[in-house]
C-alpha cells in the first residue's frame, strides 16, 4: 500500500487497465503531449510513453471526439474520453445523451457502448465557464451510470470498474481534490489522497460509502462536499451532535440500501451539494429518500447547496457560493433544532 493522490490513482488505474486489455484507449485534448501536462490536471501524464498508439490527443472538438468514442465503443473498443473541464460536456451533450446513452435501447439490446467519460468539476477561481458542477445534467439519464470520486482509493477502483463495465460511465472528479502537482497545483486544494493497495481491485459503481458512523443525523455529500461534511461532523461532535457522514459516490443509480439504513437510524437528513440548489442532484435524492423512507423522517430533508446563481469569480463571492463546513454544520443544527 502506498499513499496516492487522486490524480496518481487515476493514472495508475488507467495504465493498468490499458495493460490488461488492449481495447482500452484514451482520447482527449492535450492528454499525452510530450513535454505537456497530461491533460488539464496531470491525470494522464506520461501515458503516451507506454501507450503511444492508444493515447490520442484530439483537436478541441468535444462533440467530435465523444462521438468518436461512442463509435469506437460499439465496435468493441473501450475508450476513456476526457474533458478538460466538466463545463465542456455541454459541447458534447448530443453525442452523450442522444447516442451513448440510448444506442443500446434503440437497438433493442443488440449494441453495447462500453465507454468511460471523465470530467473535472467544481468552482476553482476560474470564473463561471470553468466551474460548474455538471452532475445534475447526467443523473437519471437512462443508459448512463454516474459516479463521483472523492478519494484516491475510490478513484482507482471506480475507474477500473467503469472501464470493465459494458455501459457508458461518467466519472466526475473534483479539481480541488486531484492533488495535481508542480505547475498544475490548485490553490485551495483539499487532500483526497489515501492508501491504495498494489493489487488489482475495483469499487462497485452502485454502492455508497459510510465514511463516519453516527446516530443523530445523516449527512449526504460527494466530491469536495463530502470532505467538508466530514469536517462539519467534527465540529458538530464537539457540540455533542453525532453525525453519520455518507459519501454518496454513486449518483446514478443511487444506493438506497446504504442511505436507507442510515436514514432509518437517524431520522434526519442533510444533503450537501456544490451547485445551485434548484434542480440539483439533491432534489432527486431528497425526493427519493422521502418517497422511500418518509415514515422515518422526523423533519423534511434539508439541502445545503449553492444559491441559484452562476459561479462568480471574486474569491469572496466564490467562497460564499460554495458550501463550506460551517454552512453544513449550521444546516445540521437548524434541522435538529426545528423539532
Amino acid at each position, binding site marked *: 500500500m502506498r499513499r496516492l493522490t487522486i490524480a496518481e490513482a487515476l493514472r495508475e488505474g488507467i495504465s493498468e487497465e490499458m495493460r490488461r486489455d488492449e481495447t482500452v484507449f484514451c482520447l482527449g485534448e492535450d492528454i499525452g503531449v510530450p513535454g505537456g501536462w497530461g491533460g488539464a490536471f496531470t491525470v494522464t501524464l506520461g501515458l503516451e510513453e507506454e501507450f503511444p498508439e492508444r493515447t490520442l490527443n484530439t483537436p478541441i*472538438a468535444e462533440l*467530435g471526439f465523444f*462521438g468518436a468514442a461512442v463509435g469506437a465503443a460499439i465496435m468493441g473498443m473501450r475508450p476513456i474520453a476526457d474533458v478538460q473541464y466538466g463545463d465542456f460536456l455541454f459541447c458534447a451533450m448530443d453525442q452523450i445523451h*442522444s*447516442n451513448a446513452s440510448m444506442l443500446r435501447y434503440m437497438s433493442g*439490446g*443488440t449494441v453495447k457502448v462500453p465507454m468511460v467519460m471523465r470530467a473535472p468539476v467544481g468552482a476553482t477561481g476560474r470564473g463561471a465557464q470553468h466551474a460548474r458542477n455538471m452532475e445534475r445534467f447526467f443523473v437519471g439519464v437512462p443508459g448512463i451510470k454516474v459516479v463521483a470520486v472523492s478519494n484516491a482509493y475510490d478513484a482507482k477502483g471506480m475507474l477500473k470498474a467503469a472501464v470493465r463495465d459494458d*455501459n457508458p460511465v461518467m466519472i466526475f472528479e473534483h479539481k480541488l481534490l486531484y492533488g495535481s502537482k508542480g505547475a498544475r497545483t490548485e490553490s485551495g486544494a483539499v487532500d483526497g489522497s489515501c492508501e491504495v493497495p498494489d493489487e488489482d481491485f475495483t469499487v462497485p459503481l452502485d454502492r455508497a460509502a459510510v465514511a463516519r458512523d453516527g446516530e443523530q443525523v445523516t449527512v449526504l455529500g460527494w466530491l469536495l462536499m463530502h470532505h467538508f461534511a466530514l469536517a462539519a461532523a467534527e465540529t458538530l461532535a464537539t457540540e455533542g451532535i453525532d453525525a453519520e457522514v455518507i459519501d454518496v459516490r454513486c449518483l446514478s443509480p443511487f444506493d438506497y440500501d446504504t442511505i436507507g439504513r442510515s436514514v432509518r437510524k437517524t431520522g434526519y437528513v442533510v444533503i450537501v451539494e456544490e451547485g445551485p440548489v434548484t434542480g440539483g442532484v439533491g432534489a432527486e435524492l431528497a425526493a427519493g429518500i422521502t418517497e422511500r423512507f418518509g415514515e422515518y423522517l422526523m423533519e423534511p430533508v434539508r439541502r445545503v447547496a449553492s444559491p441559484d446563481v452562476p459561479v462568480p469569480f471574486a474569491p469572496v463571492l466564490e467562497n460564499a457560493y460554495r458550501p463550506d463546513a460551517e454552512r453544513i454544520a449550521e444546516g445540521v443544527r437548524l434541522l435538529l433544532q426545528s423539532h
Partner: protein
Amino acid sequence: MKETEYDREFLVDLYERMLLIREFEEEVKFLFLEGTMPGTIHQCQGQEAAAVGVCSALEEDDVITSTHRPHGHALAKGLTPEEILIELFGGGTGCCRGKGGSMHVGNIDKGMPPAIAIVGGGIPLATGMALALKMQKRPQVAVCFFGDGATSEGAFHEGITLGAIWDLPVIYVCENNLYGASTRVDEITRMPHIAERAAAYGIRGETVEGNDVLAVHEATRIAARQCRDGEGPVLLELETYRLTGHSRRDACHYQPEEEREAWARRDPILVFGRALCQRDDVEQADLDRIRCDVEARVAGAIETARGEPAPTLADLTTDVYA
C-alpha cells in the same frame, strides 16, 4: 455508364436491389397513408442509386451509419425487408426489437448500428467506428451516409476533422438531394459543391452523379480501396433528388415543378433499366420479371411483418443497460 464492362448478373443484381428499395418505400408509404403503420417516415425514392451504388462496392463486413432516412441504406446493406418492416410496425421481433422505429433501423450484426436521426450525429460515430477498425488493424472501411443539410452541423466539421488527422478508413458520403427538409442547399452555403469542402480538411473530395448507380459504385470502390490502403478518408458527394416528400404527407410545394419533373426523368431506376435493355443479354421482360419478384418479396414481407407480435410491457424496461 459503362454497363458493357460488367457482367450481366452483377448489373441485374444492382437493378433488383434498387427496385427492392423503391418497392419497399412505395408500399411503406401506402401503409402509412392508409394509417396501418405507426410513427413517421422519411423515405428515399429517387435516391436508390446512392444506397445501392455505395453498398454494392463494400464488403459484407464493412460498416455503415445512416440517418433519419435509413430504409434504403439498410436494405442495401443486407437487412431483410422483414426485419425492417417488423420494426416499422413496432413489432417485438424487428431489427431493433420494436424499440427503434423507422428513424433508427439497423442491425449491428450486419454492420449497421441503429440509424442516427440527429442530423449530422452519425458523422462522429462513423469516424469512431473507423478509428476502431484502424486500431484493431482490420481491413474494413466505415461508410457514413448523411445529407446536404447535415454539412452545416458542427458534428460534420468535427467528425471529418478527426477522420482526416487520424487518416481513418472512412468514406463520408453526402447524398446531396438539394434539400434539407424544405430548405434548398444554395440557401445554406455559398459553395456550389459539397465535395469542395473536402479541401478544408485536406482530404479528397469528389462529386458524383448520384443517380447513376454505376458511377456511384465505381467512386465508392475507388474510395474504399484508398481507405483500405491507409489513405482515407474520402468525401463523396452524390448528386441526387428525393422524388417523395421529406416526411410523410409532405407535398413538396417548396420545390419548383420543373425541377421535380426534370429529376423524375432522371429517376435512377428508370435510367438504369433503360441502359440495361441496351445490352444484348437483357430484355424488358427480364426487368418485368424482376419487378414481379420484388413485388412479391415485399408483399410477402409485409404479410409476415403484420403477423409479428408487439413487444410485451416487460420489454419497456429492458435493454437500458448492458
